[in-house]
């Protein structure tokens, strides 16, 4: 339009522009206050009217942990793996972070349907809030992990700590990418929530959490199957996490079987995950235009 141009620039309320917040993830971080309130709301609401409340966030992983250690460790017989419970626990931290963000993130947009339909907020807010809620829930588990490591005798070197940081950043960025993409897809195709159940199951068994990486290594000898296995960002994040928390507790840390060039691989994976976040954001923006009319 002709008059939307020149004299508009100095208008105190800014130029004429299409309404609606389309700044994506940046917009979310600009509105941190709202994000914080949404996270708090979610924390308040999630376990309301349940007798054990917040405790469920710890009972569920605890039961799973006990099952793995008892059944896989003692009944099936992986107990010979040094510090096997710590091996499982470290893996679980990573895998649970991913699966929880995935399942909560996927539902997040649909669950906030009245807001999406009627109010103007950056919609990326909802999957991001799910990720933060998961993070908050897992803090005590990280504390337990630290205490357990220190009790066993944990002496990480700087490379191990770097591995830990890489593990965390990979799993956060990958979960963010997947949460963003699936929350948008779930609006259009409600099959997605069934699909993620399957993924959750797959992720649990396709990462070296319950079994050690050496079983994969000795069966594949670095062939393409191993490479494929290591293309899974969750598997890499688990291995890096174990490099940080589990390996330094072993009597002979060099005895642990880990993939070659683990740290370099981690940096590569992190870069790939950042690209995935960007792609997921593009997908989200593209589908977002249809959100309000799909959820009447």
């Amino acid at each position, binding site marked *: *339009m002709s008059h939307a141009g020149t004299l508009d620039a100095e208008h105190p309320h*800014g130029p*004429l522009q299409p309404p609606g917040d389309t700044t994506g993830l940046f917009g979310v971080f600009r509105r941190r206050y709202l994000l914080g309130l949404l996270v708090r709301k979610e924390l308040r609401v999630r376990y*309301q009217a349940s007798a054990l409340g917040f405790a469920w966030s710890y009972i569920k992983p605890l039961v799973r942990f006990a099952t793995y250690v008892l059944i896989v460790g003692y009944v099936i017989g992986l107990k010979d793996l040094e510090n096997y419970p710590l091996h499982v626990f470290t893996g679980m931290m990573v895998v649970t972070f991913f699966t929880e963000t995935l399942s909560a993130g996927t539902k997040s947009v649909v669950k906030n349907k009245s807001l999406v339909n*009627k109010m103007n907020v950056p919609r990326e807010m909802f999957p991001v809030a799910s990720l933060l809620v998961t993070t908050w829930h897992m803090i005590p588990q990280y504390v337990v992990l630290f205490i357990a490591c220190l009790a066993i005798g944990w002496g990480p070197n700087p490379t191990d700590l770097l591995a830990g940081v890489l593990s965390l950043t990979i799993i956060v960025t990958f979960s963010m990418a997947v949460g963003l993409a699936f929350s948008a897809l779930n609006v259009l195709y409600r099959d997605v929530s069934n699909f993620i159940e399957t993924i959750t199951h797959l992720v649990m068994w396709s990462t070296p959490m319950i079994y050690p990486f050496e079983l994969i290594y000795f069966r594949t000898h670095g062939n393409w199957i191993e490479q494929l296995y290591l293309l899974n960002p969750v598997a890499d994040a688990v291995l890096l996490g174990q490099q940080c928390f589990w390996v330094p507790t072993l009597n002979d840390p060099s005895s642990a079987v880990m993939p070659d060039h683990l740290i370099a691989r981690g940096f590569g994976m992190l870069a790939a995950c950042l690209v995935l976040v960007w792609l997921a954001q593009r997908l989200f923006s593209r589908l977002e235009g249809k959100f*309000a009319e799909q959820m009447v």
Partner: protein
Amino acid sequence: MATSIILDQVTKRFILRDTMTLKRRLVALAHRNPVTHAFTAVNDVSLEVEEGEAIGLMGLNGSGKSTLLRLISGVLRPDEGQVLTRGRIAGLIEVTAGFHKQLTGRENIYLNGAILGMSEAEINAKFDEIVDFSEIERFLDQPVGSYSSGMFARLGFSVSVAAESDIFIIDEVLAVGDPPFKKKCIKRIQEIRDEGRTIFFVSHNTTQITRICSRAVVLESGKLAFDGAVEDAIHHLHYDDETDDFDAEGGEI
């Protein structure tokens, strides 16, 4: 005066999917029967609004009023044409949209204020004003799930008028609420108008529209049917044909 809102040949269609099983869908596809229907909610609407204008948006149920408001607020995007707005938009498309039933009135004030784009400091500064206006002080620390619909409307309205905006949208929210509260709302909306903010006001109530608006826009089946003086719009809609007893006190039916 600068332009505040431009709608340029805006069209919005909704695709209605017939709910059917996969089998029926495949059969329909094989027979080349349609599985979706398009419904044009807003059809080629062009409109230009100056800053400080108070527009009354009128039309029968299903004529596309709410869709038009959602296009202006940015919740929906047009299929054709373009929508341009200037400045911050606040308002109520539905009073309870931003409310969470399990949170208390107090928590909801903060949550809704933030949704409308207010900062924490802004909400703190306006908190008392919001509570005073809503008159629900006694129930402030109760979950809003236990509120009556009137209380809901009061709280929602109070938060949205507190948010500073350049364009203020009100969609039939005054339908709930008792006459004294409605009167207070009308007065507040008039103040907002006098501050020079742009107002989009949806109502079936001719008295309310006359009191607030300087211009009326009538939609009929998604098309712009009338744009001009309020009395002429009322005449156009034949809302003045019969005297309506309920209308006398500025109340809604």
